[in-house]
């Protein structure tokens, strides 16, 4: 049995917090495989030292050509690392980068892949949601090598070890992007916590009617130190940027508290938030499906309920 390689994404000289759940899954998998957890850092520079706090070893491919995550360049490096390590598994968080790169690496390795795993059940068996979360499916990977992307909300972030592992510089060799190039990233600026990591998420739906009306949700969100989300309907209508979308095709969140405002509760939205610990639904339609998954439901217009809720929370928190 071999090592478990884990792709870590980095930013500004540190490991991205979104990669920490993958380290936890890698550690669980390593217990089944009996090998080390080896972090793979591509184009990360100084972040390799940070990665060493979480892994038994770090392989750092510090080439400027790998500084941006292109599937065309990253997948062969990952596949090369796995082969050179003789690793028995490759994992990464199911971020947009992980989802883009890992299957391509799996093809290069001719390895079976499990997407978006929620539990490690054996050396090659995993649980994962299918049918928009309406079926929990256990799958077994049949190839000698296992590739898995990790649902971030289902594994706690890894904590740093007392003694960091060694960092070993690796040579990626010639890097060929196949002519593909990243032109730019139009990032959504936010001072709030990452949607996928926030303890509290306040989401608005079609019933918010306009982007301007989301301001009232922002006040509640900031009071609770949470992240702002939205249903597909609200994102489609242009009320908020697309990357705020929670659902089967957006982000999957599992905060301690999820407040759904003016969201009807389509299956595809529920798939992205059903794992929340406590769900509050506020909707003027008492028959809205969102109430079927809500722990606490309040029937009413957001126009009156949200300002009152914000005021009440201020009152009790201040008291």
């Amino acid at each position: 049995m071999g090592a478990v390689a884990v792709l870590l994404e980095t930013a500004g000289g540190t490991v991205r917090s979104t990669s920490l759940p993958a380290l936890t899954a890698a550690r669980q998998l390593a217990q089944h495989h009996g090998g080390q957890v080896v972090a793979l850092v591509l184009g990360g520079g100084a972040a390799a030292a940070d990665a060493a706090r979480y892994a038994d070893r770090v392989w750092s491919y510090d080439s400027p050509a790998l500084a941006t995550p292109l599937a065309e360049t990253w997948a062969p490096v990952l596949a090369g690392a796995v082969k050179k390590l003789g690793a028995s598994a490759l994992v990464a968080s199911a971020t947009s980068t992980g989802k883009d790169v890992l299957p391509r690496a799996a093809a290069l390795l001719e390895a079976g892949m499990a997407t978006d795993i929620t539990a490690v059940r054996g050396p090659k068996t995993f649980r994962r949601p299918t049918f928009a979360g309406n079926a929990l499916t256990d799958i077994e990977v049949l190839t000698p090598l296992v590739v898995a992307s990790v649902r971030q909300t289902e594994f706690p972030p890894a904590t740093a070890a007392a003694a960091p592992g060694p960092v070993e510089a690796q040579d990626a060799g010639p890097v060929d992007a196949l002519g593909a190039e990243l032109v730019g990233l139009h990032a959504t600026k936010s001072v709030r916590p990452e949607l996928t990591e926030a303890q509290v998420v306040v989401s608005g739906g079609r019933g918010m009617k306009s982007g301007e009306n989301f301001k009232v949700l922002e006040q509640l969100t900031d009071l609770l130190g949470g992240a702002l989300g939205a249903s597909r309907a609200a994102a489609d209508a242009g009320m908020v940027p697309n990357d705020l979308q929670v659902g089967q095709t957006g982000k999957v969140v599992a905060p301690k508290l999820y407040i759904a405002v003016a969201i009807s509760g389509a299956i595809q939205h529920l798939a992205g938030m059903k794992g929340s610990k406590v769900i509050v639904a506020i909707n003027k339609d008492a028959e809205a499906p969102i109430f079927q998954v809500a722990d606490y439901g309040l029937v009413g217009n957001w126009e009156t309920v949200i300002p009152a809720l914000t005021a009440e929370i201020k009152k009790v928190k201040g008291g």
Partner: protein
Amino acid sequence: MKILVSCKRVPNPEQKLKFSGAAVDLSAASWQVNPFDEYAVETALRLTEKGKGGERAGEVVLISIGPKEVAQQMRGLLAMGADRGLLVGGDDAALDPDQVARVLRAVVAAEKPDLVVLGKQSVDGDSNQVGQLLAGYLGWPQATFLASIVLAADGKSATVTREVDAGVEEKKIPLPAVVTVDLRIIGKKAVRNAALAGPEAEWEDNQRYASLKGIMAAKKKEIREVTAASLGVTASPVVKTIHQEPPPPRKAGVKVASVEELVAKLRTEAKVL
């Protein structure tokens, strides 16, 4: 411009999922085209059009894997405007993403498309793998989760925007390439072939419905049935489903009468405030 589009059928996602033993039971499912595959067909059609309702230049070829009944779903996509179809016989419920990608690779070798367009994931398996696997097998550039695509006038490259966690990423890829599409690709101005349509070109929001004329025309369009073996594909599965169960039900919630009651319960009962 020849574009290959993969499509599969999925059980209606609005229907309650049935279980039989430790497996999902689809014996009574009503089938439809995977929504993201409809978006892929719409994308491919727009890339062969001068604008909404304008002339077409190019060919859109559908590929699906499944039993003969899948021809019914393919016929609907031909009615939207796709030109012809290829149906590879197989048990679609038992296929894994790797087998699908290997069949597609063989079809690409035979059809030699300029571009392969896929939905980013199916809404039953939710694997989100096939496009990336195919690009990996072909050694072609890939662009996943597209919100928009513009084909260059010389037909040699595409500039796309992709839905990523942090916002929107812009990427340029040479053709031939594999792309997978996300929800936003069916916006009015999300798709354009610069050789055919200017920046002012726009389409209706959402994927088109089949017109009566389209439905009549689709009856005469070819759906060629082939076997994986005839394509030279003998891939065995790389993953196996061993157990399926419904998620644990959430305990029944309560309706509260007022904001005060809600806040009190969140503090004292749920302890999340």
